[in-house]
């Protein structure tokens, strides 16, 4: 729920509450005032009538009308005044009309006369009744007003806020780098924007120094690695070396080579990050795969892997030749490496003009599918693997915004790339 919608709801609940209570109170208040006024008038009328009666001998003739009744009663009990509402059917208009009546008893000698004075309530009622629609209209006006104001607020006042959110959503270190400060006319948003700028600047700086560190350290490692490797090469030429010593040197040599491979992988990763492979060309994936498969031919034959190539659709993408080669090479190489020891199968399918699927048989994975592309995560079987292959694949896919996914069904593993 949007912030403005949420605050609107609270406003509306409060308004509705106050309005309901207010309307009810107001209704009774008005009614009370009107009745008081009417009652006062009735009493005055009664006093007037009684005053008049003092001088009259025969009351009936004088005062009986629509509004005043005087009748002689026998009892002497109710000597006080009584005010109440009643309704009388009007034969002319054929409706019941509400009246306010005052009943009073007047005593003259031994005779008791009941005086009833009434006043129509029609006017008062219409006054009271007209209050409700006005109240409802006001309420509606208020609600509409609140909604409109909120819309205005969200469009106008909150605009810089939503804009900032939008910019944050599209934030990445490669293209955006820093979300710069933008002045609005709200202090809080200015502050937020300022903080975001400071924060992204720091992130970018940290990212850069991290990147530089990675780059420099791997580059600086190259020379000592080369020296160690070459010295070892010279050392093994020595004629006086015993077998055990050769084994030791052999494993050092092999470790140095792994270190070199690892370092090359890291350099490749940082080069991709730095966008150093910017030369683009139109690459035919199917053709490239076919040439690549040639270099794997012997390895595939060696492990007796059955390869099924269904390159029926032509996939052509603009990308860097080296990177795409590396991408496909690593995928195929993995499909062979993680296959069964013998009699495995690899299927390469072009699903559509931009989807490639490579699946291979192989032991089920020891790790979750989502973690496949993490650096240095290795399947247990290939112990001498460096563990950078798939993260390089991922990096290349990220660079070109290819969607890559991995799924496995027991012993069938599938990598799917949407170019």
């Amino acid at each position, binding site marked *: 729920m949007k912030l403005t919608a949420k605050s609107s709801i609270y406003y509306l609940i409060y308004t509705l509450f106050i309005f309901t209570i207010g309307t009810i109170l107001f209704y009774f208040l008005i009614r009370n005032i009107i009745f008081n006024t009417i009652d006062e008038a009735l009493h005055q009328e009664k006093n007037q009538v009684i005053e008049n009666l003092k001088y009259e001998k025969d009351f009936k003739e004088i005062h009986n009308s629509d509004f005043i009744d005087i009748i002689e009663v026998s009892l002497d009990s109710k000597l006080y005044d009584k005010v109440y509402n009643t309704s009388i059917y009007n034969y002319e208009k054929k409706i019941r009309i509400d009246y306010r009546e005052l009943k009073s008893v007047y005593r003259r000698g031994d005779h008791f006369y009941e005086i009833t004075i009434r006043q129509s309530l029609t006017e008062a009622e219409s006054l009271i009744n007209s209050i409700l629609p006005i109240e409802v209209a006001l309420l509606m006006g208020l609600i509409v007003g609140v909604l409109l104001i909120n819309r205005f607020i969200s469009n106008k006042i909150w605009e810089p806020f939503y804009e900032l959110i939008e910019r944050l959503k599209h934030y990445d270190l490669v293209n955006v780098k820093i979300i710069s400060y933008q002045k609005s006319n709200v202090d809080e948003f200015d502050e937020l924007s300022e903080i975001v700028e400071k924060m992204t600047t720091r992130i970018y700086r940290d990212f850069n120094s991290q990147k530089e560190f990675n780059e420099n350290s791997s580059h600086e490692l190259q020379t000592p690695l080369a*020296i160690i490797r*070459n010295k070892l090469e*010279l050392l093994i030429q020595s004629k006086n070396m015993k077998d055990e010593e*050769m084994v030791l040197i052999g*494993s050092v040599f092999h470790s140095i080579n792994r270190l070199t491979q690892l370092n090359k992988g890291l350099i490749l990763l940082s080069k991709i990050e730095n966008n150093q492979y910017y030369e683009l060309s139109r690459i035919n994936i199917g053709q490239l795969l076919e040439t690549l498969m040639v270099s794997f031919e012997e390895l595939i034959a060696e492990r007796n892997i059955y390869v099924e190539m269904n390159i029926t659709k032509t996939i052509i993408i603009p990308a860097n030749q080296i990177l795409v080669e590396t991408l496909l090479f690593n995928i195929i*190489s993995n499909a062979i490496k993680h296959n069964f020891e013998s009699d495995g199968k690899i299927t390469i399918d072009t699903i559509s003009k931009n989807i490639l699927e490579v699946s291979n048989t192989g032991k089920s994975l020891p790790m979750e599918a989502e973690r496949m592309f993490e650096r240095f995560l290795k399947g247990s079987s290939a112990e001498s*693997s460096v563990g950078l292959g798939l993260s390089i694949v991922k990096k290349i896919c990220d660079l070109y915004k290819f969607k890559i996914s991995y799924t496995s069904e027991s012993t069938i593993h599938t990598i799917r790339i949407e170019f």
Partner: protein
Amino acid sequence: MKILLIEDEKELRQSIITYLSHEGYVCEVARDFPEGQEKMNTYAYDCFIIDLMMPGGNGLDLVKEIKTKNIKGGIIIISAKDTLDDRIKGLDLGSDDYLTKPFHLSELNARLKSIVRRRQFDGNTDIIFNEIRLIPENHEVFVNDARVTLTGKEFDLLLFFISNKGRVLPKDSIAEHIWGDHMDQSNSFDFIYTHIKNMRRKLVDAGCKDYLTTVYGIGYKFQTE
């Protein structure tokens, strides 16, 4: 055979010289750009091995100078930079080969031999070792003048072994020579083993002496005696 190595890193320089001297090359060194420039303009060499990033200048300028002044000799660039740009630029300027650091000395040696061979005996580049004769252009092998059919990889292996004959070759450098270096190849060793086994069998079947010996724990050696 005279070679000029222009490289600023002392340890690397020494290793390269030691390895190549054993091959019978006369190696001279230059520690930086001006020294390299001076030597190549003063003496004659069969091949130049040039590092790209050096104090005093870029190795590419030396390559350019060799070509424009028409100085004789092959050129191998050795560089820590592995960008396609540099590689293309180097080869375009007239360098014969481009090796990325770190490289195996056996690899440098093999490439050097191939360049020298191409340059020295134009037309006749056969490699002859006792009863074995290789014709690199056609990927053909003859043992006692009888043709032996080898696969592409087997031929590469044999050529690599003969280029580094008498040397102990670690499995890693053999794998890298055959596979290139742009991957971690966990299963390439078994693979190399099979190739070597097949190549060996084919040669022995054709009546060739088995020159190849296994060096325990390290790799192989192509015996010279």
